[in-house]
């Protein structure tokens, strides 16, 4: 009995000592980067951090699961329980602001960027997405573009698509020709539902234009807008050219259809470019890309950022981490591996492939717009409800009913529907 008690006591003491030791000099980074290139990129960052601070033990608290859906649930539980990591991955925009900043769980970190003289190195629009009441709350590390069409060049040549189409009618014309030749026009994999909204938000952007689209989230544009109805109508037309088994597929499966020469094109964020490269294709040789017709002037942003939660156990190290990832060096280490572009505008272009260079150019010159499904534009309650509505639309294809539903969802979330 006594012995048992002593054992328990010993374990307790060890555990306590363990936590104390962990308090001393560690850095816990929370993310959902666990797959292929992502994890490698994160490791490269850790490696760089160790170069400057060799004594700091890095705890990689990554949670697996597509697009961070599982990680986000874990993070919320930890934040609620008062056990935040030192810094965590979060998409720029409402996913950060609405969830964590407004309830007062984050520290403002504008001063870090000021100290580094880096405030003007990022595009203003992207820092705005990370800001609330004039203070920056997270540091954007990378940027993906969501409104891109990737296509199979061989099939494109067969159907006579030499130049990327500039208009919807042009695009639909090519889809029609692909279908006539026995190919799938547009590959879609919406088993996990979000890809349908991914397509629809770009159509919204195309029909509203970047300014009106951005206005939706500032209550300047009404949701009761012909542009949204037109976007539904275009989507309805596009759905005639998708693969019938779309509900059995993920976005990777859809990209594979393009790779296997079964489908002409797919609309996906540019992580698809990374996936095509891992499959062995070279950008510009086997596959081409263009901004979705109608959205050539806009850049739909999906940006991963890191912030500083209040009560971070190793605040000093967290600040070091944030300073590191805000630096040009770290962004140029991370992004070529991850297959994204840096959020800073002064990166070393020679490190990036031809697609990413194209994307960097657009990022610096086009209007930036926040993505809905990737958490930037609207709170999660809005985006998941809209995702369900669009998922239904893919089956019912009922423009009026879906439009009404969108208005209801917008009203529920306090957006302008007049």
């Amino acid at each position, binding site marked *: 009995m006594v012995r048992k008690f002593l054992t328990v006591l010993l374990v307790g003491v060890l555990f306590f000592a363990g936590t104390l030791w962990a308090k001393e000099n560690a850095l816990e980074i929370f993310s959902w980067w666990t797959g292929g290139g992502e994890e490698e990129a994160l490791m490269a960052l850790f490696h760089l951090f160790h170069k400057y601070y060799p004594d700091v033990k890095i705890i990689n608290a990554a949670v697996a699961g597509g697009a961070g859906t599982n990680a986000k649930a874990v993070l919320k539980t930890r934040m609620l329980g008062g056990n935040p990591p030192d810094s965590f991955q979060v998409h720029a925009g409402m996913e950060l602001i609405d969830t964590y900043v407004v*309830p007062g769980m984050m520290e403002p970190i504008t001063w870090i960027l000021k100290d580094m003289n880096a405030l003007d190195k990022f595009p203003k629009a992207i820092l705005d997405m990370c800001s609330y009441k004039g203070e920056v709350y997270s540091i954007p590390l990378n940027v993906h573009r969501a409104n891109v069409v990737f296509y199979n060049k061989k099939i494109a040549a067969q159907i006579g698509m030499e130049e990327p189409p500039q208009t919807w009618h042009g695009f639909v014309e090519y889809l029609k020709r692909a279908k006539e030749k026995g190919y799938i026009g547009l590959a879609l994999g919406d088993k996990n539902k979000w890809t349908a909204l991914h397509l629809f938000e770009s159509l919204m952007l195309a029909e509203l234009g970047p300014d009106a689209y951005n206005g939706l989230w500032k209550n300047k544009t009404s949701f009761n807008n012909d542009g949204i109805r037109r976007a539904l109508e275009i989507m309805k037309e596009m759905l005639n050219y998708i693969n019938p088994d779309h509900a059995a597929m993920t976005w990777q499966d859809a990209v594979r259809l393009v790779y296997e020469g079964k489908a002409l094109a797919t609309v996906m964020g540019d992580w698809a470019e990374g996936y095509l490269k891992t499959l062995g294709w070279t950008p510009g040789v086997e596959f081409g890309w263009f901004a979705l017709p109608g959205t050539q002037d806009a850049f739909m942003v999906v940006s991963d950022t890191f912030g500083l939660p209040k009560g971070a156990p190793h605040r000093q190290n967290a600040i070091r981490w944030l300073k590191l990832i805000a630096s040009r060096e770290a962004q140029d280490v991370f992004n070529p591996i991850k297959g994204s572009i840096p959020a800073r505008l002064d990166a070393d272009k020679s490190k990036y492939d031809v697609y990413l260079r194209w994307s960097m150019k657009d990022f610096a010159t086009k209007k930036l717009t926040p993505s809905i499904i990737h958490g930037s534009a609207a709170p*999660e309650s809005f985006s998941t409800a809209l995702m369900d509505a669009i998922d239904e639309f*893919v089956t019912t294809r009922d423009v009026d009913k879906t439009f009404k539903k969108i208005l209801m969802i917008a009203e529920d979330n306090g957006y302008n529907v007049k």
Partner: protein
Amino acid sequence: MKKEVLIGLLVILPSIIAIAIFVYGFIFWTVRVSTSNWNSFSSLLRGIYHFVGFRNYKRLFQDDRFIKDLWNTLFFTLFFLVGSMSIGLLLAVLVDKGLKGAQVFQNIYLFPMAISFVVTGTVWRWIFAPGIVPSDPQGINLVFKKLGLDQLMWGWYTSTEHIGPFNLALIPVIIAAVWQMSGYTMAMYLAGLRGIPVDIEEAAKVDGASEWQVFWKIKFPLLKPITLSAMIILGHISLKIFDLVFAMTGSGPDFVTDMPSIYMFELTFRSNRYARGSAISIIMLLMVAVVIIPYLVNSMKEEVRR
């Protein structure tokens, strides 16, 4: 006597406390959340409880998706129970006959139960992936095509066809669930069959009963408690089913394979609508209670009789 009772109480006290907190305490807490306005992360964080009555429940019953979920659960449970139990019984009878190799098959039938639903869900997803019918089928459709059974190819779980409120896309999910659980049902029936004394069977045979009569008039009635427990166990699995469906089909196009548990997960952890998610979980609890409570009452009565 008194001391014994006291010691007995002391021994079970820790588990009583644990159950009181972790089961009933949390049920109560979920009920409380389900009648609150905690439908965003910030309102949950603020933690100010604002009672809204049954508004969350009312909203759910106005929600097309939730109504579809309830129908799906009903049909899934019905077919899953009938399928698992009839196949389980059949297998048990065959194995019990003691044919050559029965032992081996007994184990083979039990294996699926040992695999997690997530794994089988993923595999069945590949099997029932329709591909493009009719030109470029995959999985089971490809088998049909090679066999020349073209008319059997269809969209499986991607189909949005329905007969009344029954979505045909549920069929592959039901097949997967039956495949997984019928071996377990077999094991239960087998235990029951082996527990039936041989002399009863022999007496019946002496009286001139046919094999068929022995089964339906003697064995099957004696298996009644097994049938009841199997129904309860399978019933509560199917009412709460999440992992199999989530891994295999997700909520499906237009929610043809959606279940309340999936909706609950998405509302709670993806939309931050904690109150409404809690309301679904309470409704699911009530559904399971409808199945379990009569059984508990029944078994308690039997114990009193003894």
